[in-house]
């Protein structure tokens, strides 16, 4: 009995009228935890009852404390008939279980009913008394902190980053139980909500246990998802990165130390090699013995891609031996663990040594019920398989770890696509080894690693490349090799040097497929997948070139399966990395060169493309300093290269097939217009309209090239569903529809947020689903952040000037390298060896979908020191805030006396891990909520739009209420993980499920902090927090 949960029901307000006769309500409250229920007195005839109850005390195991939610039900007392339920509040008490988080949950919670939505509010106070339990064999993991944030939380220091933790639990979906036929929709919805809440709690507890086993104290980058597998059940799964975190005592300590990289490294975490791997187990108590089990009886593993920058060249002179040493050491540390994966997307300085490229794996599975309850580990095996594949891909890239790792599923009927992706990387051995090696390596590291281009350098061995690649010497340090293009799933490292600004790049693709059943369906899908992956990749590459950029960050490719089509949507943030070579243009070639008008058309297109590239360069301020002609000399013709797509069927067969999907034998960036399809592609390239002036967008945490955020933020969710006309659907028509849908959605967003200009849409997250045959649903969540335009211009200007100076002074010494490299690339460019290597090295599929860009290419001599983006740079932001009080102007306006005394505190929400112009002082715990809303009066609620609009607003409200009750004033790393919408307009019905999560935090405005800290250097949190709440 290690815990006592105490609950007090204070009052209610704005209750609905339950008694038509009196227009009033006789409300009382049931408080339930586990199997214990307490009731308050009935408060007669009031819509604002004051129960002021005693403390209800539950004496419970801490295991239950973690698993169970506190369930509060508000009812209307009825003497003669059954009491009517008004609504419920579920409170996750997990934040009360760790010492540094919240100590009390107290506040107004919306009373929620799955049929009627929010119906008034209830004021509740919850406390937990925990008794220390030293039982080593305990099942609970109280005290392990969870963070959705995919970087080290702002007020902590990572002592050790242990590594990957995962777990999944399965159960029957109450919606599909036989009892559902006789119970009310409300009862069924509530059963589902409660079950998922329970499963989430259990999952978190189990992950916590694994973390304790690894001797960690926290999970960072915690991502929990649920799969609604329909008939076959409900899966709740989670992944995260186990860490040992230390709370920083002084707020100044975590400022990035800009000028002492060696010091930074000492503060950086150690990756701790665990003595044993951790495997997930399934002993979920939720399992019902009689229920049917989940299983697979059919499975297709589909070919997957490795995206990297390609190039050709020879080994760097000093890079080789050092790299080998490095690999040896890190491998030994990381190979001990089953999956050297990290869900983090941003890292402490010095942690990331090299980035290899994106690795991804997909697998098509058939969901089926089986009646063998002793085999609950099917889902786990599926994921293990995929992770294994990812791991081997990473190895093929010469990397021993995968960062920015994430997993997702797409389910349609009985077919399920499992996807995993991440960025293959080499991590700093300094952080992977304890003590011993430290001394000898330290020197080398310090001279090699703190360079800002280090992560761009290839991790794989140039002489032994896993695929044909175009390599050049790094444009920054000129010592190491870099690829010409780099794709990653992580955020742009804070110390990376970029030129100009970044932008959101999306590849969109639809493919029709025949309706089919079971195996045939799964086979059809898995046959389509590689083509889709390849096309998505080509599109990304083309668009990147069109923007004049050379690297993608935050790449997320989503493949969605529907009844009769597959959709692919890739989003990423393109940037120009100073360390990588300048991308060449795109050249168009026609197939029938004799036709005069055709030629003309082609040249017209070519001109358009060139214009677009030039325009984009201007728009995104990409102006790498040009080097004068005599230094450059004439362009060196590059050998032609073929990009190849490799496909294999892992495990099920050892057969290795090779698919050549490249565009003939031309140079990779020659787009060949040989049929209408290709024409479409080129057209679609040009239809993407840049955002209106004053707007920028990206899907990463921060916008590369903008660093002077002001404090106004607006998080939003936008949902669109379109119905396709079912007549003569072709792939082209489908593509166009989908493309228009996304483009129009973006345009709408820009229009809606025009009052915030200049601003940037950050963390733009698109999710596609296919709820029905002819419906496409796109959900976007992002945050708009204002920035100070004037200052931005100034800084870039000075930086450009500086870099120009640098470049000119460096010209002399740069001269020799490119020549050397060019001769190398010509001589040592045999394609076959690399190919062989790939085929032999891996039975898994690796598709170097290489696209080269050498049409106009020669090696340019550039060395740049463009501006560095420093997210945490507090000094800059403070001055920004002083310089432009515009940001908060609206919020601070108190000119309207009647309304100024609003009692509802403002709670900010953002998908980012930080709040511009503010400092996070405390993490209060994870918010993970699941809601179902259903209606049988769709028309009366304003149709589907009215219904969903109200529901999403309600979800936001409930998240804010929970955060406020925890004593917080913001949610960071907020994500809407699922928004499943189903409608039946004929029956006037609709249902929606939403799953959201984030980290509840307390933040303090930097301006306030400064004032307070000058007055009272210590213990200023409390006062400034409240101040912050009032003024924001």
């Amino acid at each position, binding site marked *: 009995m290690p815990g006592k949960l105490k609950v007090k029901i204070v009052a209610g*307000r*704005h209750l609905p009228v339950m008694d038509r006769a009196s227009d009033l309500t006789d409300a009382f409250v049931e408080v339930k935890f586990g199997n214990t229920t307490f009731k308050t007195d009935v408060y007669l005839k009031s819509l604002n009852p004051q129960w002021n109850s005693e403390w209800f005390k539950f004496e419970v195991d801490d295991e239950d404390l973690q698993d169970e939610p506190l369930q509060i039900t508000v009812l209307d007392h009825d003497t003669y008939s059954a009491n009517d339920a008004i609504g419920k509040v579920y409170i996750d008490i997990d934040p009360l279980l760790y010492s540094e988080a919240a100590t009390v949950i107290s506040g*107004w919670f*919306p009373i929620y009913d799955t049929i009627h939505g929010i119906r008034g*509010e209830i004021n509740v106070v919850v406390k937990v008394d925990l008794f220390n339990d030293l039982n080593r064999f305990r099942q609970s993991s109280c005290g392990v902190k969870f963070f959705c944030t995919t970087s080290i939380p702002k007020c902590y220091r990572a002592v050790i980053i242990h590594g990957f933790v995962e777990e999944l639990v399965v159960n029957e979906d109450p919606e599909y139980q036989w009892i559902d036929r006789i119970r009310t929709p409300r009862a069924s919805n509530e059963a589902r909500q409660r079950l998922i809440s329970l499963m989430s709690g259990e999952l978190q507890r189990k992950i916590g246990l694994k973390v304790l086993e690894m001797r960690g104290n926290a999970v960072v980058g915690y991502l929990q998802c649920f799969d609604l597998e329909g008939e076959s059940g409900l899966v709740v799964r989670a992944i995260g990165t186990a860490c040992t975190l230390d709370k920083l005592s002084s707020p100044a300590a975590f400022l990035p130390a800009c000028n002492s990289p060696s010091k930074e490294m000492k503060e950086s975490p150690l990756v701790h090699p665990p003595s044993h791997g951790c495997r997930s187990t399934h002993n979920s108590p939720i399992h019902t013995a009689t229920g049917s089990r989940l299983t697979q009886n059919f499975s297709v593993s589909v070919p997957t891609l490795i995206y990297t920058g390609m190039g050709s060249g020879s080994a760097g002179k000093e890079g080789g031996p050092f790299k080998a040493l490095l690999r040896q050491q890190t491998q030994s540390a990381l190979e001990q663990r089953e999956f050297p994966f990290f869900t983090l997307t941003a890292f402490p300085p010095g942690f990331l040594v090299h980035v290899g490229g994106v690795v991804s794996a997909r697998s098509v599975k058939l969901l089926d019920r089986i009646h063998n309850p002793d085999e609950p580990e099917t889902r786990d095996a599926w994921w293990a398989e995929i992770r294994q594949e990812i791991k081997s891909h990473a190895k093929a890239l010469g990397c021993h770890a995968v960062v920015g790792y994430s997993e997702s599923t797409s389910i349609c009927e009985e077919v399920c696509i499992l996807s995993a992706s991440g960025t293959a990387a080499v991590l700093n051995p300094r952080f992977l080894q304890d003590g011993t090696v430290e001394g000898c390596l330290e020197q080398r590291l310090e001279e090699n690693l703190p360079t800002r281009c280090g992560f761009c350098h290839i991790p794989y061995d140039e002489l032994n490349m896993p695929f044909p690649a175009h390599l050049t010497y790094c444009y920054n340090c000129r010592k190491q090799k870099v690829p010409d293009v780099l794709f990653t799933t992580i955020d742009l490292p804070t110390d990376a040097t970029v030129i100009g600004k970044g932008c959101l790049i999306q590849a969109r693709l639809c493919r029709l497929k025949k309706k089919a059943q079971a195996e045939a369906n799964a086979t059809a899908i898995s046959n389509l997948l590689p083509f889709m992956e390849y096309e998505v990749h080509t599109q990304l590459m083309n668009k990147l070139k069109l923007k004049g950029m050379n690297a993608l960050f935050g790449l997320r490719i989503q493949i969605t399966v529907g009844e009769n089509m597959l959709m692919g949507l890739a989003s990423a943030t393109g940037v120009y990395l100073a360390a990588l070579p300048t991308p060449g243009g795109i050249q168009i070639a026609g197939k029938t060169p004799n036709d005069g008008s055709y030629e003309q058309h082609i040249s017209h297109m070519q001109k358009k493309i060139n214009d677009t590239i030039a325009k984009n360069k201007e728009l995104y301020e990409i102006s790498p300093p040009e080097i004068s002609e005599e230094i450059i000399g004439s362009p060196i013709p590059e050998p032609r290269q073929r990009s190849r797509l490799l496909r294999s069927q892992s495990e099920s067969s050892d057969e290795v097939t090779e698919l050549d999907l490249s565009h003939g034998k031309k140079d990779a960036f020659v787009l060949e217009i040989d049929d209408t399809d290709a024409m479409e592609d080129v057209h679609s390239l040009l239809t993407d309209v840049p955002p*209106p002036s004053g707007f920028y967008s990206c899907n990463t945490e921060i916008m590369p090239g903008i660093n002077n955020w002001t404090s106004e933020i*607006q*998080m*939003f*969710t*936008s*949902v*669109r*569903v*379109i*119905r*396709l*006309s079912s007549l003569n659907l072709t792939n082209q028509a489908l593509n166009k*529809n989908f493309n228009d*849908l996304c483009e*129009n959605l973006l*345009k*709408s*967003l*820009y*229009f*809606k947020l*025009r009052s915030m200009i200049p601003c940037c849409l950050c963390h733009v997250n698109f999710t596609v689903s296919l709820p029905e045959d002819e*419906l496409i*649903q796109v959900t976007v969540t992002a945050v708009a952040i204002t920035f100070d335009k004037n200052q931005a211009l100034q800084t870039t200007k000075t930086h450009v000037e500086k870099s120009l100076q640098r470049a000119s002074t460096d010209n002399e010494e740069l001269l020799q390298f490119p020549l050397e490299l060019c001769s190398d690339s010509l001589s040592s460019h045999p394609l076959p060896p690399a190919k062989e290597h790939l085929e032999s090295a891996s039975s898994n599929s690796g598709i170097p979908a290489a696209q080269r860009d050498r049409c106009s290419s020669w090696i340019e001599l550039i060395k740049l020191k463009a501006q560095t983006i420093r997210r945490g740079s507090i000094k800059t932001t403070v001055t920004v805030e002083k310089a432009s009080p515009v940001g908060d102007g*609206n*919020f601070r*306006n*108190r*000119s*309207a006396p*009647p*309304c*100024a005394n*609003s*009692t*509802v505190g*403002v709670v*900010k*929400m953002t998908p980012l891990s930080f709040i511009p112009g503010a400092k996070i002082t405390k993490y209060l715990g994870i918010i993970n909520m699941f809601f179902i809303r259903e209606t049988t009066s769709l028309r009366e609620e*304003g149709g*589907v*739009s*009215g219904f*969903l*609009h*109200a529901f*999403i*607003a*309600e979800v*936001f*409200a409930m998240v*804010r*209420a929970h955060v406020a009750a925890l004593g917080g004033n913001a949610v960071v790393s907020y994500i809407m993980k699922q928004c499943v*919408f189903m409608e039946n307009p004929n029956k006037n019905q609709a249902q929606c499920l939403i799953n959201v999560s984030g980290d509840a935090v307390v933040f303090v405005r930097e301006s306030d902090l400064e004032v307070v800290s000058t007055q009272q250097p210590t213990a200023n949190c409390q006062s400034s927090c409240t101040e912050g709440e009032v003024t924001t």
Partner: protein
Amino acid sequence: MTSELDIFVGNTTLIDEDVYRLWLDGYSVTDAVALRVRSGILEQTGATAAVLQSDTMDHYRTFHMLERLLHAPPKLLHQLIFQIPPSRQALLIERYYAFDEAFVREVLGKKLSKGTKKDLDDISTKTGITLKSCRRQFDNFKRVFKVVEEMRGSLVDNIQQHFLLSDRLARDYAAIVFFANNRFETGKKKLQYLSFGDFAFCAELMIQNWTLGAVDSQMDDMDMDLDKEFLQDLKELKVLVADKDLLDLHKSLVCTALRGKLGVFSEMEANFKNLSRGLVNVAAKLTHNKDVRDLFVDLVEKFVEPCRSDHWPLSDVRFFLNQYSASVHSLDGFRHQTLWDRYMGTLRGCLLRLYHD
């Protein structure tokens, strides 16, 4: 490709002031889009008509959801569903309760009942204000009336407290409620030249001096009903015109004081008895509800029109009324000085306001 569903939900609820105005003015989405297009917004922002349509729909949906809360503004402040900065909340409320001059003149003094609501069609046609907007304004009047109807304390304060309106708007509503409660006739042709502001001004003076609240602050309805006892007592003033000596004395006092100061002295001298009879008779008749309703008609007929036909300048009217009220204090035989002041103080203010073209 048709859009089945299209929504945008911000953590902070976006309010577009222009769209809000269009919504309040009762335009349909289609009309609103057309009006927005005409405003040149597409050129300014480079948006398409489809974007505008989607944006307008979205705002309309938000306003529709907010409307329920706007019916009880304190709810808007305490609700959790829409996060709206206080300044925006104030704007939403203030604009929602704002009304059109043309509309309020049509219903001012009418009973806020179903019957009047049925006439909204005609009002809409007559004023050119959309029926939807008329309904909103009418419902606002009625809602405020219902809430403050049986409340104690100052009418303006009550309105302000329950509807969170600005001082100015709360005063206007007090006037509307006061007029509706006393059913003052304002629609007659000869009253058409008067603005809502004129009536509101008079209402405020009357609330301050002629209601129960003016003497006792603890009564229900105190600011809405006229003080019955006071109205009864006004009969006593009749002596001023009934007693010939008193009337003559009053006239001579006024004339002596104003001789040489008034441009229209001779007209005044000639008309004094008529004017005085008119003003005193209005007072004496106020015991009957019917005559209370006709107060403004009587004032215009018995005082404003005669003076206007003789082309009295406003300054002369002021001189006259001041002297007319003050001279009564010198009438030895007259005992109702306080009553006179309570009546004439307010009436003087009203008449001065009503006296214009």
